[in-house]
């Protein structure tokens, strides 16, 4: 027994020591981000995956072949947090990555020198970039020196804009709605759907699993920014404008007009229970369920995939009208959208070259050609009539305002989204909901 034991033990000892060494070796081996502080390599972090990532690689291909610089892409959905940790700990940062969405973080990172300015990165090319890109993306509203939402601090830019999307568009079936586009919201509400053979004026679908309510928040965002202006809107995102304030309350009341039982197909319950991707389906059935669906540019692929047999074509079968004015012409230039940007965190020759490249028409045209998005440069060529149209909207916009909920603290965002669901379900609860939102607001923006 003892000998068996001894043999067992020595073999076991050898094995375990070997394993320990192996484990140690493996764990010091692969690291998750390579250092590229040189003239020949650039590290890039992006949240893109799937088709978007493929498009990005298409954009980078000519750059890599002509300059010989190798771009190391890492898909990272938590880049902001990790960069924040990196800044705090003084460890390596990626050369290029999206800028942070939190305005306080933008300011803090600029002051710490973590964000390098676009002026530095682009050098001589900077003026061309500013002139060629949508004004809304590169200038602070009202000539202010700061707009942290688009990365402008102290008059300098820290975010390079590369792509953009427009929201708050009213989609319609060209074969159903043949009238003229309404210029104001009141004109829109006055349209009689029966005149075009449709059941109701609007379709809506707010369901989205754990994120239900976001389409509703897009609708109310588009109302408030045109009704009460960008100052109110921005203050509201930052928690400085109460929900019970007259402007926000007016926004809610106007929103309720869009989702009343008379206005929306299938009534309120349908709006609440339908998934956002299927919300537009009634437009393409006969008889048409509704005339308009308010959504962003990405909804087109949903129309097409829901009705493969109809072979819906952009521009011929469906198109959009820009969001009508709310009656305050001074705010008509406020457009809701989102954008993709890159910031430079390490000032290296290779990183600068990449930033310069992404700011060129050639690079962004590849993005435009791959479809599904607008570039940030004004005069790109779009073969898709939808995006040609959307480019026109973005071009005339004075301010491109972000989606409010996305820039609020997450518990505020959740309460905000769900408040829209609740008032849709029960409009009489509006005042109670707004009061509750004020409570959440007071607690949410603090750090305790």
């Amino acid at each position: 027994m003892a000998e068996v034991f001894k043999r067992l033990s020595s073999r076991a000892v050898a094995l375990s020591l070997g394993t320990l060494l192996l484990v140690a070796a493996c764990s010091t081996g692969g690291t998750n981000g390579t250092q590229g502080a040189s003239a020949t390599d650039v590290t890039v972090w992006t949240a893109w995956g799937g088709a978007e990532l493929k498009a990005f690689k298409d954009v980078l291909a000519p750059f890599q072949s002509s300059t010989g610089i190798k771009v190391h892409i890492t898909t990272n959905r938590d880049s902001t947090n990790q960069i924040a940790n990196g800044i705090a700990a003084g460890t390596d940062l990626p050369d290029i990555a999206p800028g942070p969405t939190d305005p306080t973080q933008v300011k803090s990172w600029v002051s710490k020198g973590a964000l390098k300015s676009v002026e530095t990165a682009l050098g001589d090319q900077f003026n061309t970039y500013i002139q060629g890109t949508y004004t809304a993306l590169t200038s602070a509203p009202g000539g202010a020196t700061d707009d942290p939402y688009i990365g402008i601090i102290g008059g300098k830019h820290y975010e390079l804009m590369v792509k953009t999307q427009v929201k708050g568009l009213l989609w319609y079936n060209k074969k159903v709605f043949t009238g003229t586009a309404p210029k104001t919201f009141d004109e829109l509400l006055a349209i009689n759907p029966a005149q075009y053979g449709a059941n109701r004026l609007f379709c809506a679908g707010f369901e989205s699993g754990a994120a239900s309510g976001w389409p509703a928040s897009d609708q109310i965002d588009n109302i408030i920014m045109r009704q009460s202006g960008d100052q109110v809107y921005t203050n509201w995102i930052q928690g400085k404008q109460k929900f019970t304030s007259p402007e926000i309350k007016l926004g809610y009341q106007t929103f309720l007009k869009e989702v009343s039982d008379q206005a929306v197909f299938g009534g309120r319950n349908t709006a609440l229970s339908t998934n956002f991707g299927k919300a537009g389906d009634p437009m393409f059935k006969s008889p048409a369920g509704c005339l308009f669906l308010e959504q962003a540019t990405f909804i087109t692929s949903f129309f097409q995939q829901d009705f493969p047999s109809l072979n819906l074509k952009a521009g011929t079968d469906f198109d959009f009208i820009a969001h009508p004015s709310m009656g305050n012409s001074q705010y008509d230039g406020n457009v809701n959208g989102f954008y993709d940007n890159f910031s430079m965190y390490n000032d290296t020759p290779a990183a600068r070259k990449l930033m310069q490249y992404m700011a060129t028409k050639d690079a962004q045209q590849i993005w435009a050609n791959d479809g599904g998005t607008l570039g940030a440069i004004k005069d790109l060529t779009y073969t898709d009539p939808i995006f040609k149209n959307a480019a026109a909207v973005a071009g005339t916009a004075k301010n491109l305002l972000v989606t409010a909920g996305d820039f609020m603290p997450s518990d505020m965002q959740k309460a905000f989204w769900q408040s829209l669901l609740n008032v849709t379900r029960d409009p009489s609860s509006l005042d109670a909901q707004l009061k509750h939102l004020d409570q959440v607001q007071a607690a949410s923006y603090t750090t305790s």
Partner: protein
Amino acid sequence: MDQIITAVVAVVGVPLVLLGYIILGERVLERLSDSLQKWIRPYFWALPAIGFATVFMVYPLLRTVVISFRNSDDTEWIGLANYNYFFTFPDTLTALRNSLLWLVFYTAISVALGLIIAILLDRVKYESIAKIAIFLPVPISAVAASIIWKFMFDYQPPGTPQTGTLNAILGLFGRDPVAWLVNSTTNNAALIFVGIWTITGFCMVIISASLKAISSEVLEAARIDGANEFRIVQLVITPLLWPTITVVGTTMIINALKTFDIVYVMTNGAYDTDVIATRMFSQLQSAHYGRAAAVGVVLFIAIVPLLIVNIRRFQQQEEQR
């Protein structure tokens, strides 16, 4: 690729390392004096288990209590402010109310159904197949179950063909579809029912095993005495099964209070369906650690009575050993 290598190394390496730990350790221990050996050995063997439990449960438990009294930056003590927030915020009060609903109905109904189904199935020949049917939802994840029932609860405008099974059935009886997950009167019940659906099989299997252990003479004697089936269930079976029912019930209560997946996937607490676990997660996501901790502590306090019961039961078992 890296990940696969690490995983393989772990699967092979950890048992080997533990093996080495045991064998080497014993070699060392055996060179020590007898009394020293007896003293050190148990701790040596139990160290990994105790170590893990301490690091992942005991320490975090204590630390969470501490955090609940501090602000989210962890820079200052703020006393009961987080608890105050907890008890005065309408969101948390709703979550508490809903968790209570879960506690009562999820537990009571799944145990009761488990008992009833066990008894009923005991009397038919196709018991095994039926048991499999009822047990089937148990191994699937709550996420999959939530998706299954999302389809069941689907809603289409009145007058159009229904895609959700429940609304289609309503349509057969000529009634309008119901927005199950949106409507306040139905949504909590709907979610709780999904929970019940996933766990009743579990209760049934345990209770059924105990049921089979009841000696047939006892039941025969009761029948010969003229008692009808209902009385037998009431006066003979249930009392004999009571220990099992309590064990199952305790487990169900803990499950009810910990419910997260179903609510998160189906509604994320919308339309007043929030429960404690989803509230806590939402606070966690917005980095309000102090408040999240306070929610956790309240949850724990709710469970303390069960803790005591569990420990007492264990001590009784120990005495019988």
